[in-house]
Structures are given as structure tokens and as C-alpha cells.
């Protein structure tokens, strides 16, 4: 009887749990005819953006698996990636070797930042999200100190094209022309006018496989245990704090790689602001894909990246068609990102609340049943 009941609510549940992706599908369907783009253009844009963003979004999965919620601290990894890129650009190592070197350099920086972030988050258990959010603001200050004052004065920067006219500090924009889309173009194939960056997708696929494999390892199992009940995990002898730190470090390193892939596609980056919203947009994309604070899959990441960016491609044109102003698209982007995150956080809390009142309901039901039996 019990099983029957669960299957009855499951369709309603299914709609409820997937309300966010469904809403975005509807928005995209409405915008699609309004924007009037050709399918080839649309696909091209979409594929480019998927290659650019997916890796970054996948960086969020491991902390969610470890029960630490949405890792706003992935910004730290983005900073590490940027610092590595600046150094590689200065050393004038171009193309794929430059990208690989930047990734290698980003690893120790990411690990260091991840350790710092993970240790702080262990002191704020249960409030990881807001803490990581503010850690990213705080570390933004440190990043500015390093890039604006230390680079060129203490950290040697050879080329004056990179430096501010005063002799130290990095210019507002760093050009990555030497490695622009190198990763995307290698092995790229053209299908009906749509450029597919095969290598980038291969790298993403490898990461997906690693994540799937990781779930089946001892460490992955420990993370899932820690996520569900830290006390039980601790009693079983799992080092909870260490496991959580590892989750954050892994996320930070992946975010660093992701940022490098993201920036090589763009071809240049604003030195002081490239990372500021990357966390917000990645998290929003993941949530649009149907993920929640405690559950996220690779599928959510792909669906999210598709829907979220589809909307961004369509919204400006659709906005222009309706209001005559293309700014509406940019406005929409920020508005929707914050909106989606807010909704996810509220749903997380209300779901916890619902589970709580459920037990009371069951108790009342049991009592009623008992009375009926007594009669």
C-alpha cells in the first residue's frame, strides 16, 4: 500500500522537482521564434558556449556530493587560473603548450586556496554557502593585491605590454591572442556549418568519466556518507574534516582548469573582474539544469548549460524584438541568475521543513488507523 502511495505522488513530484528546467524550456520556446535566428547560428553559438562553460560547472559537483552545498568558493579556482595565465602570457609560451603550462601552474595555487577555503568551511559547518560566498569576496581582495601591486614589483613580469604604465601591476585587460581558441580549434570538425570543438568536448568527457569513477571510490563513498550524516560518518571512523577539505580542493583545482578553458575560448580577459561573477553564473546554470543544493548530476550540468545559454543567446534578440532595446538581454542574464539561486536556496529550506512536518502527519495518520481498527 505504501509503495502505491509514493507512485501516486511521483508525477506531481516529478513536475515539482523539475519545475525550474521546465520553466526555462518554456522561456526558450517563447523566445525562439521572436529572436528569429537560423538553426545553424543557434547551434554554433550553443556548442561554443557549452565547450566554454561546462568544465567550470562540473567543478561544482564534488562539493555538492560531499554535502557542502553550492561552492561559491569556486571563484578561488578561477583566480588561480587567471594568475597562471598571466604568468604564462608573460613568459610568452604560446598555443597548446601555454594552456597546458597554465593548467599545471594553476594546480598548486588552487590547492593552496582550496585548503584555505576548506579549513574555513570546516569551522562553519552548516553555513558553507554563505561562508564560501564571502570567502570569495575576501580572496578577491588578496587577488587584487597580488595582481595590482605584487606583480611587476615582487613577482617578476618581463613584458611592459602587460604592465600598467607605472611599472608594476597588470593592465585592465590581458590579451590571450597567442592561445585564443587553440584548444577549440585543434581537432575541430565542421558539421553543416557548426564548428564542434572536439578536443574541448573530449576533455569535458574525460572529466565526466573521472567524476563517475570517483563516485565509486572509497573517497567518493566517504564523501557521500559525510554529506548525509557527519556524526555517523565520524563514529564510523571517517575523517570528516579532511574529507570535506579534499572535496573543496578538488573543486578548486577543477575550477582553475575550467577558467583556463573558458578564457582561452574568449581570447582575452578583464584582469580584475573576469572571475567575479563566474561562480554565480556557473551555479545558476547548474540549478537551471534541475540540480538542488544537495543533489546534482552530470546530466544537470549539461542540461543546465544548454538551457541557460540558450536563453542568453535568445533573450537579447527577443528583447530587442519586443522592446527595441538589446540591453534587456544583459539585464535578464543577471536577474535570472540571482533569481534561480534564490529559488534554489528557498526550496532547499522548505524541503527540509516539509520533511519535518511529514512525520507529524504520519503520526496523526497512524492514530486514526488505530482508532478505526479499535472500532
Amino acid at each position, binding site marked *: 500500500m505504501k509503495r502505491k502511495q509514493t507512485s501516486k505522488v511521483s508525477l506531481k513530484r516529478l513536475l515539482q522537482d523539475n519545475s525550474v528546467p521546465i520553466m526555462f524550456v518554456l522561456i526558450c520556446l517563447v523566445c525562439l521564434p521572436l529572436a528569429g535566428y537560423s538553426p545553424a547560428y543557434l547551434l554554433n553559438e550553443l556548442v561554443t558556449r557549452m565547450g566554454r562553460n561546462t568544465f567550470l560547472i562540473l567543478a561544482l559537483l564534488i562539493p555538492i556530493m560531499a554535502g557542502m552545498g553550492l561552492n561559491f568558493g569556486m571563484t578561488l579556482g578561477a583566480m588561480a587560473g587567471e594568475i597562471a595565465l598571466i604568468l604564462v602570457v608573460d613568459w610568452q609560451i604560446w598555443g597548446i603548450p601555454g594552456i597546458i603550462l597554465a593548467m599545471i601552474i594553476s594546480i598548486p595555487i588552487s590547492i593552496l586556496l582550496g585548503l584555505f577555503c576548506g579549513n574555513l568551511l570546516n569551522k562553519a559547518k552548516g553555513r558553507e554557502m554563505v561562508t564560501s560566498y564571502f570567502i570569495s569576496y575576501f580572496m578577491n581582495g588578496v587577488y587584487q593585491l597580488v595582481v595590482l601591486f605584487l606583480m611587476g614589483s615582487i613577482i617578476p613580469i618581463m613584458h611592459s605590454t602587460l604592465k600598467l604604465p607605472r611599472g608594476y601591476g597588470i593592465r585592465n585587460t590581458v590579451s590571450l591572442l597567442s592561445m585564443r581558441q587553440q584548444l577549440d580549434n585543434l581537432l575541430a570538425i565542421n558539421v553543416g556549418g557548426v564548428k564542434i570543438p572536439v578536443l574541448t568536448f573530449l576533455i569535458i568527457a574525460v572529466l565526466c568519466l573521472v567524476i563517475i569513477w570517483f563516485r565509486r*571510490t572509497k573517497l567518493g563513498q566517504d564523501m557521500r556518507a559525510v554529506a548525509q550524516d557527519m556524526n*555517523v560518518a565520524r563514529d564510523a571512523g*571517517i575523517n570528516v574534516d579532511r574529507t570535506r577539505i579534499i572535496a573543496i580542493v578538488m573543486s578548486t583545482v577543477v575550477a582553475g582548469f575550467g577558467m583556463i578553458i573558458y578564457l582561452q575560448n574568449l581570447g582575452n580577459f578583464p584582469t580584475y573582474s573576469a572571475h567575479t561573477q563566474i561562480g554565480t553564473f556557473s551555479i545558476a546554470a547548474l540549478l537551471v539544469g534541475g540540480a538542488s543544493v544537495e543533489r546534482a548530476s552530470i546530466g544537470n550540468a549539461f542540461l543546465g548549460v544548454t538551457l541557460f545559454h540558450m536563453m542568453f543567446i535568445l533573450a537579447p534578440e527577443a528583447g530587442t524584438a519586443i522592446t527595441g532595446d538589446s540591453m534587456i538581454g544583459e539585464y535578464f542574464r543577471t536577474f535570472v541568475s540571482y533569481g534561480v539561486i534564490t529559488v534554489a536556496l528557498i526550496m532547499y529550506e522548505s524541503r527540509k521543513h516539509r520533511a519535518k512536518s511529514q512525520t507529524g502527519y504520519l503520526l496523526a495518520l497512524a492514530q486514526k488507523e488505530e482508532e478505526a481498527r479499535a472500532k
Partner: protein
Amino acid sequence: MENNNAPLLEMRNIKKDFFGNQVLSDINITLGPGEVLGLVGENGAGKSTLMKILFGMDVIRETGGYEGEIRLNGQAVKFATPFEALAAGIGMVHQEFSLIPGFTAAENILLNREPTKPNIVSQVFGPRLDTLDYKTISQRADQAIDKMGVKISGDMVISDMPVGHKQFTEIARELSKDQLKLLILDEPTAVLTEKEAEALLTSIRSMSAQGISVIFITHRLHEILSVCDTVVVMRDGYVVKEAPAKELDVQEITRWMVGRNVESAASAADVRELPDAKTIMSIRKLWVDMPGETVRNIDLDIKEGEILGIGGLAGQGKLGIPNGIMGLYEAGGTVEFEGKPIPLNSPRKCLDASLAFVSEDRRGVGLLLDESLEWNVAFGAMQIQNKFLKKFGLFTWRDERAIRAVTDKYIDELKIKCTGSKQKAKELSGGNQQKVCLAKAFALQPKFLFVSEPTRGIDVGAKALVLEALKRFNREFGVTVVVISSELEELRQCCDRIAIVSGGRVAGILPATESSEAFGTLMVSQVV
């Protein structure tokens, strides 16, 4: 090194005090391999503390360790952590479940002891990146489940399981440890249905046949008699009776459990019968979802002007009743006060109806720890009844003088030991904090007062004072008082009638003059 003649476990002269409060005195227990020992006693008798000592729980070390000696296979041991106890072959199943809800039974049984297979990555980065060997996990889990002699599916997710299966999963986890020699079961049947409990008893017998010793703590005495070789009865930190189970019956054990110097109980003159008193509160079909203290289908009538005691063993639901009525936990059913229904789940409405509640959670619910005694005493009355306030036109001031006066009055009356009415509540001792809680409730001048565990964690002298104050409050102002306490003797000292809650229901109501044996029988009558 192993001495085959020595018993598996010997506990000798175990003593333990919590900050001068002696909770265990000269405990001696011996247990042979494959033996089943039943440990019974009222709440607070020291059973749990004794098991915590044996299992090396942190709380023991943090509170100053213990005296005495524990020998395992003839060798003296002293466990600093539960992990050391586990390694030595002691397993423990606690009262609260310690399972990962989203994992399957098999995953839980082998939590953090999963069989793994090495791979290339783990060769470089260490064994934590070994892949899990799901096949062996489910095999080993099934083996452990088989040892119990029950049927549970290893792939079932814990959150989908009935409570009984969860309990069996916990036990299977301990059984899956190869080194296991001694299993401690702390009230394992408390959450089981009759049938499941029977299955558990069968599995205890089969464990014992396999040479695993079991220490079995329960309130269901017939279980003890049916499965144990020896029964140890504890009371007030002493072992009062140790005998083979064959020589005992339920009545006898009950008597040993509760029967202390029966003479000290309520003097008959003090207990009033109030046959003409009208019913001030009538409770019908009340259910309360308070974790660990759930009650259901409670029907209870409380007479005006009486002191009603609500007793019962821990976890049977007695605390759920006041917490549910006062709206601190989700509740349903109907409660009528002076003929008018009281809306549940709304504390404010209760307080407005002149009900007051002294919570068992003094530090959490009862007190503003960082505020002065004056604030603590007057706060409720100020918030709810606008007492101690002066009005000047649009503004309302606190009437500091009236607050001071009322606080001083209660400090004096209840003999609260403090430096003055300005002292902060957190600086007082537990007993004095309890008195402040009472003063706070008294200052509300309620018609009806719930007092939950008024003497928990306070010393004997303070206990008497608190009970005396309650009694006086009742007699002088005609306030109806309901005292909830796990200590039966204490209820018998101050109450007119005592209701015993067992298994989430009212098992019976008796006058306080009734023998403690009668109460004891009620306490264990419906334990589920």
C-alpha cells in the same frame, strides 16, 4: 598471553562521578564467552554510564575518567576512544540509530570498512582512491545478516526501511566485524514491534550460540527473562541484585528496580483526594511528534487544584505531553482548558490562557542565560501580561523597581543562591537556575503550570526545596500543577495522583500512596 580460564569481561570496583555527583559505586560484573547478561534499572540508575565507560566514550574521559578496572580475557584494558574498544572486539548498538539514511543496508553495514580494489590512480594517490568492490560488500553484508537469522535485503535503502530493519542493520554492522566478542545492545527492542522483538531475541540466542557475549539493556523485563543467562539490576549507581535469570520473575525484578526505602515516600496525610474538584483541563486524542518522546491517543483529565504527576521511563513519551500542549512540538487532538478549546501548535495562545510551562530544557528554552536574574524572572510576565510596565503617554517604561522587588521576593522564597538580582543567569549552578525558571513561571501567576523534569541534574538538597516550592505554590494559590519527572519517588513526594506513561500512552493513573511496585508494573506494561 590469552588466559582461557579468565572470563571474557570483568569489571571490578567501577566508580564514576560527574563533578562530585556519584553516579556509579563499586560495580562488579563478570561475563563469560557466549553469555547473555541482562542489565536493568530505572532511568538514572547508571546503566548507560557503565556502558559508556566500557565502550571508551569521549564523555567519560572529558568528565574526569573513572575508577576501577576492566579486564578483557584476563588482561586489563583502558579504552581512550570507542575505536580502541571496537578494535578489542566490543561492539555497541546505541539507542539512537547511527545509520546513513541514503545508503543501502549493505553500505551501512560495512561503512568505512568497505572492501576495495586497488587501481592505477590509487597506487599514486593512496588507498582512498581504491574502487569499491560492490560484490564483496553485498556478500559480506549478507553473511552478517545471516548471522542474526533474519531476512533483510542488503540493497534496501535505509530511509525506506521500517524501524525494525534499521535496528537489525545496526546489529548486523557490529556482527560483520570479525573481531567481535562482546555486543552491547542498549534498548534495542524499544522501537520494535512485538514480532520484530521476538526475532531479535532469537538472533541474540543464535549469537550467543556462536560464542558472542551480549549485554542486553531493556525495559521489557520478560525479554530479559526469556533470553538472558544472568540478570543484573542497578539502582542509584549500585548493583542491587545479580542472579541467574531462572531464579527471578518480573515482579521480583520490578521490586529490585524501583523499591528503595519505600517508607520515605509520600506521607498519606499529604496526599489529597479531590473527588469534588471539577476538571480544569481535558485532553482528548492528543498526539505529539516530539523526537524520542512521541505520544499518541492520550486521554487525560486534570482536576482543578491538584498536583498531578506524570511519570514513566525515558523515551516513553511523558515529556511529549507538556511540550505538545504548550505548542513547542507539532501536536494534534483536542485540549480543553476551563471548558474552552486551546489551539495547539501556538505557544502564545497557551500563555494567554494562563498556562505556564517550566521546560526540561532549561538552558535552551527556559532561561536568557546572558541576562540578569531580574530580566529572567520578569521577562515572561512583561511580554505576555504587560506586567512590570509603566505607561507615560505614548511611551512604556519598564518598572525597574517592581521588577527588582518581585525578583528579590523569589530569591528569598526559593533560596536562590546568587550575588544579587543583577547576576547573570548563566553564572548560577544548575539547581539555582532551575529555581529561577520556577520563579519566572510563578511571576506569570498562571492558573495552570506544567513543570517538566524539575529536579533533573540538581542535588538532593535543592531537589527538596524545589518540590516544596511547587507544593506551596499549589496550596497557597490553588494553582493546578502537573509535574513530569522520570523519578518516581520525587513524584510520590509531591503529587496527589500520578499518571504513568508507557509506550506513548497513559498506562494508568494511581494515587501517590500506591506501592512503588504497582507503579513499576505500569511503567513497563506497554513499553514498545
